[in-house]
């Protein structure tokens, strides 16, 4: 350091320029490495979903499909209308027709529908339950407020696998196995605490005066919440909706326990069943995988800002 001070100014300036260039270069390389690390596996999944049965087993692999095909996606979207696929005609006996498409391909769209319904119901219940609770915890000074916060925090630490056995027995006794309601109910355990935390964090950031002013003007607590706070907290509500939706859409363990048929199976369950069946073409499995990741990725890209701020809010207290 001391050397540079005594050297001529030209040299110093050159050094500075060199430092800036090398800094930019380092950032560029770093950004490229990160982008490749994140995107390469996904790109490979997408690429192989467009490959034919013959191409996907080439050694070494074709990174970009030379003969791209939509056959896998067609099979998924038209599976319901086709003739019944039986064990005899499914396992690739006939190379001309492609084969290797499982008879369970027709379960994919219903499973996607189930996932959507479950996730939507979970979102609605989260809002109904979480919004008033967060308002009370953030804006009402009452005895037992800290205790309530700790209680909700504790429920978040319980591992989902510890809930599986009791849930299973209760749901079995209630006769709710293989019903989407068993999923909706149990997903509340994994989503509600986080919902409350994001919202509490956000409501606490809004000035107390708003609450007081609304109350002076004759609003009840509920009116203050609905008319004053809700319109102001739209960003955090979006974050809550996204988190509850994605968590439910992606959940696997509980769905594995409680679903049995296509009446309630969600997308991850159907996907998991594909992966353990060795007769199914890799390209078909990958196409199903692409179908499962596209909706969450679209959501993540569109709502990037809300997700980051939501995670941030949940983080400060969490």
């Amino acid at each position, binding site marked *: 350091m001391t050397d540079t001070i005594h050297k001529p100014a030209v040299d110093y300036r050159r050094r500075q320029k060199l430092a800036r260039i090398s800094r930019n270069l380092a950032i560029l390389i770093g950004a490229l490495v990160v982008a490749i690390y*994140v995107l390469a596996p996904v790109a490979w999944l997408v690429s192989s979903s467009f490959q034919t049965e013959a191409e996907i087993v080439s050694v070494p692999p074709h990174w970009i499909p030379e003969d791209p095909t939509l056959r896998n996606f067609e099979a998924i979207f038209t599976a319901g209308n086709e003739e019944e696929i039986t064990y005899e005609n499914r396992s690739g006996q006939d190379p001309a027709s492609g084969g290797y498409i499982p008879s369970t391909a027709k379960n994919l769209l219903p499973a996607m529908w189930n996932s959507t319904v479950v996730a939507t119901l979970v979102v609605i219940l989260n809002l109904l339950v979480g919004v008033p609770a967060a308002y009370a915890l953030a804006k009402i000074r009452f005895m037992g407020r800290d205790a309530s916060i700790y209680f909700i925090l504790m429920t978040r630490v319980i591992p989902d696998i510890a809930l599986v*056995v009791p849930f299973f027995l209760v749901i079995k006794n209630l006769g709710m196995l293989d019903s989407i309601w068993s999923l909706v109910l149990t997903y509340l355990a994994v989503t509600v605490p986080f919902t409350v935390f994001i919202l509490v964090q956000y409501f606490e950031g809004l000035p107390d005066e708003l609450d007081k002013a609304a109350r002076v003007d004759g609003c009840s607590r509920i009116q203050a919440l609905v008319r004053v706070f809700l319109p102001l907290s739209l960003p955090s509500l979006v974050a809550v909706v996204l988190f509850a939706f994605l968590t439910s859409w992606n959940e*696997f363990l509980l769905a594995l326990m409680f679903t049995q048929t296509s009446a309630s199976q969600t997308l991850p369950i159907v996907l998991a069943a594909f992966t353990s069946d060795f007769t199914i073409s890799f390209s078909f499995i990958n196409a199903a995988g692409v179908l499962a990741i596209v909706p969450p990725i679209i959501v993540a890209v569109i709502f990037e800002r809300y997700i980051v701020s939501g995670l941030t809010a949940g983080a400060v207290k969490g």
Partner: protein
Amino acid sequence: MTDTVNIQPGRSRLRAAFGYEERSAMIFLAPVMLVLMLVAVFPILYSLYLSFFRIKLTRPNRTPFVWLDNYTDLFGNELFWTSVARTVVFSVVSVSAIAVIALLVSLLLNQDFRFRRVLSTIILVPWAIPYVANALMWKWIYDSGYGALNGLLFQLDFISRYMVFLGDQNKTIYLIANAFVWKEVPLATILLLVSLKAIPSDLYAAARVDGATVWSRFVHVTLPAMKPGFLLVMIYETMMAIRHFDLFFILTEGGPGDASHVLSWHIYVETFRNLSFGSGAAMSYVLALVTFALSYIFIRTLGRRV
């Protein structure tokens, strides 16, 4: 309210302790408490109760009360201890990898450069996709016959012929950890980025005036300021790692042999394949307690305050 206080001093004490604020808060909190009692507190207590019985679904009519036998049996159960060891390896490897990678990525995203926003959107992709899709993707990448990892290593001349990855006892747990790390890094990065952004720039300016080099600024300013962020990442990711199930189910089913037989997989096998609900409940209770204990230890050692 004030009327009551003046007229009936006896009841007012009760009212003051359990006043208007408490009552309205109760109404607002009732739904959430009801739901959490139903879906979290009741199941965890019920599971404690179940863990005192020998419940085998293969003999539904005989469920003797056995006190702590389900817990003491664990000490002699070799497979249980194997699964604990596997879980420790998996968690330590993946949490430390997540911490290091997320630190590097968050430092990068804290810089100002042209594609920063694009990169921070890209990085959300692994976070958003379902674990099952993640597992399916890595299963295909690791495939011993046609997988991308083999293809890549082969084309780069690192290997002369395709090799077995997930089927190799010595590699499998690290490969699963890699898939886990890939999926968890984004969240950890965002959490670390929050504490990075919270560092006042005055601190850096002051350090620069004092003649601190880039490295010593990093060690003495950046790292201490990131402590709360690290604490959070360690707690959260450790919790996620020791309970993780999805990848093990799809990639290896605990195999080959018992190479990836982690605790959550052991609980699953015990409960739903051996249909032994009592000991399954006991083990998941142990897992829940360990989770609590670990978060407590982290909070005590890494930070005074969350």
